[in-house]
């Protein structure tokens, strides 16, 4: 009898340890609690996943998002509640993909346009919003700026809602330019001259991160477009053009040349470190998307006055220099969410006038709705410079790595550019590698 009770006790202990082990795995997801088993009068909880820490951040756009969520939770108190899952930017995709694979997709999540969104659309993770937007919520839909849904529409279906958009420009330190006697360059040659002058004056000309590959790749994307644009990407997608085309090779050569003016630690610096080097006055130029305005002014408010903006220079004998790399932040609704109404309500908060006004006036990014009156007196000075550049814009392109066939294709391009920068590969070899990837995986 005694033996039996001991055996039972041991068994219980084992079961308990098993259960606690399962509990551990459950805890890892941190997603919605009790989304399905909702009763009347109970609060509907939804989860929004985002790529920056809402509490610890200095980024003004992120702070704006926090306000949106707080406002939403306050206004809908007792009905809806939004929980936020955050990661840092570098780990975002990985963590989101893991949650999706575990069938714990957040109800709504932020997403880059391009293959990133494409993979969620193709996998059926993203909900089709067309009907909701064009029929049920017509007023909301009509408030958006024209063409804003273009990059998030697949076969006529709208798969995401943009919350703001940004354009990539060259930010520069006007004081350093003055001290070095450098002029704002309009062509690539002039850019090199400016770099020379700045270097001669004892400053680092350009701050760039190759540790975060897409930062370097963005410069490469601009060079590819300035040399060979504007149809490069479309031609690549349809295999009417090879990656070994002379225009790409030339762009690779220009990248190698330009990268001599990067700060010495560029290979190891992260995006944030490279940006900090710029707003802390260690380097004269930063080539970045205009989302960086929020980051710069949030971290070093005094820098706003000396920060100028110019468009990425033309390459002589190349293509149209007035094209800009632009990008939207997008909200994707999970196809499996049980709380569509709450998600739509949250999305509306992100795109309402208050949020959009903040986006422009504090965050320095460009609103996605037409009906918002921006007070340029209080908005960051950089925003109006960016708007001036945008006024002359003749066309847009996406980030190169986000415009290719898949996330992996984008990474292949990014890494090929890093290889050129590190001097491990000639432009010919590096683009040959992208070519091989496309031959094997895309152009089959």
């Amino acid at each position, binding site marked *: 009898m005694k033996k039996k009770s001991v055996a039972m006790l041991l068994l219980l202990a084992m079961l308990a340890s098993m259960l606690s082990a399962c509990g551990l795995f459950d805890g890892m997801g941190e997603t919605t609690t009790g989304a399905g088993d909702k009763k009347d009068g109970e609060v509907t909880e939804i989860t929004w996943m985002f790529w920056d820490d809402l509490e610890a951040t200095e980024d003004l756009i992120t702070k704006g998002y926090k306000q949106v969520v707080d406002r939403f939770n306050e206004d809908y108190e007792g009905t809806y509640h939004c929980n936020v899952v955050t990661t840092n930017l570098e780990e975002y995709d990985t963590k989101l993909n893991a949650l999706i694979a575990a069938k714990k997709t957040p109800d709504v999540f932020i997403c880059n346009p391009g293959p990133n969104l494409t993979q969620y659309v193709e*996998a059926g993770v993203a909900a089709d919003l067309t009907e909701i937007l064009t029929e049920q919520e017509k007023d909301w839909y009509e408030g958006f700026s024209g063409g804003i849904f273009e990059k998030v529409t697949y076969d006529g279906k709208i798969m995401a809602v943009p919350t703001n958009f940004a354009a990539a420009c060259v930010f520069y330190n006007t004081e350093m330019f003055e001290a070095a006697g450098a002029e704002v360059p309009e062509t690539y040659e002039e850019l090199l001259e400016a770099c020379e002058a700045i270097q001669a004056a004892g400053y680092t000309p350009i701050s760039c991160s190759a540790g975060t590959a897409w930062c370097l790749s963005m410069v490469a994307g601009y060079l590819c477009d300035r040399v060979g644009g504007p149809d490069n990407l479309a031609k690549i997608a349809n295999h009417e053009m090879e990656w070994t085309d002379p225009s790409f090779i030339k762009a690779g050569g220009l990248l190698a040349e330009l990268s001599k003016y990067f700060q010495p630690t560029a290979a190891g610096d992260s995006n944030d470190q490279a940006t900090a080097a710029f707003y802390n006055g260690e380097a004269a130029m930063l080539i970045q998307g205009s989302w960086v305005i929020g980051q710069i002014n949030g971290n070093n408010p005094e820098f706003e006055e000396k920060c100028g903006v110019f468009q990425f220079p033309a390459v002589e004998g190349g293509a149209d220099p007035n094209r800009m790399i632009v990008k939207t932040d997008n909200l994707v609704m999970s196809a499996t969410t049980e709380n569509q109404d709450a998600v739509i309500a949250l999305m509306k908060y992100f795109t309402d006038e208050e949020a959009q006004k903040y986006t422009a006036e504090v965050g320095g990014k460009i609103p996605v709705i037409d009906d918002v009156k921006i007070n340029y007196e209080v908005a960051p000075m950089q925003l109006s410079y960016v708007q001036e550049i945008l006024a002359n814009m003749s066309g847009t392109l996406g980030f190169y790595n986000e415009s290719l066939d898949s996330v992996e294709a984008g990474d292949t391009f990014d890494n090929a550019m890093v290889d050129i920068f590190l001097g491990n590969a000639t432009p010919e070899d590096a683009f040959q590698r992208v070519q091989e990837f496309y031959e094997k995986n895309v152009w089959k």
Partner: protein
Amino acid sequence: MKRMFGNKRSIWQDKRAIILFIAPAFLLFTGILFVPILQVFYYSFTEYNALTKPKFVGLANYLELFRGDRTMRIALKNSMFFMVFSAVSQQLIGLALAVALSSVKRGKNFFKNVYFMPYVLSSAALGLLWAFLFNPRMGINQILAYFGVEGPMWLSSTSGIIVLPMWVIAFVSLWQYMGSTMMLYMAQISGISRDLFEAAKMDGASGLQVFRHMTLPLIKPMMVTTLSLNCIGSLKFFDLVYNMTQGGPNYNTEVLATHLYTQGFQYFKYGYASAISVVLLGMCLLVSLLINRGIKVQVYEC
């Protein structure tokens, strides 16, 4: 004796008890180990993104892995380097520390804790800590700069067959794990009877002779254990690499586990990632087989 085994109600005959005792462990192992391993074998022959149904593709994943995948070659090279480096360095330093600490009279526990400490701490935290230390804008290079030396790009240099970041990561992992090897050896050494050492001393054996002819043969069984742990641990190694370099720059510090992770969780190629994990499993089994066969263990009465 007779009564005990002759008793009909002995636990060995009580089927219910047998089932009761074995079931939890059996279920646990089947559920979280055997079944997933079998699933991985199946998935490795498919194209699978976890969202649509797996598509059978035969050996395509394996062919691609060994023929076309440049990153796989880098990962194999790095993982092998990592294994050899850890095996050799851990054995030498771990054993040396164990022998030295076993003969130390004062402060033994203090030093034991000092060497063991990194093993107890979270790899993720340590990875970040060392990533900061080796970051060009903070840490070691700043100290070097103070003395007018320009430090290398510890975590982003890409020259050489085995790139510098791999050496750095291997060093950090040595620092982290040598404590555990040391502990295991110390446990084995402390198990050797004191009489033997005293007898050897009385016969006039020098310290080196004692180590060479007594300690070393007597701790051989532990060598098999620690070597297996070192080798398998370093083949499966993931956390420090992921936290310090994410396999970059340009895949140069990719190891098998990080390659698997990128392919599976970044690119949704679970079939392909499964194939990598099958290769990894095969390598681990092979290595532990080689070690167990390769080292002859004699058990001494002591």
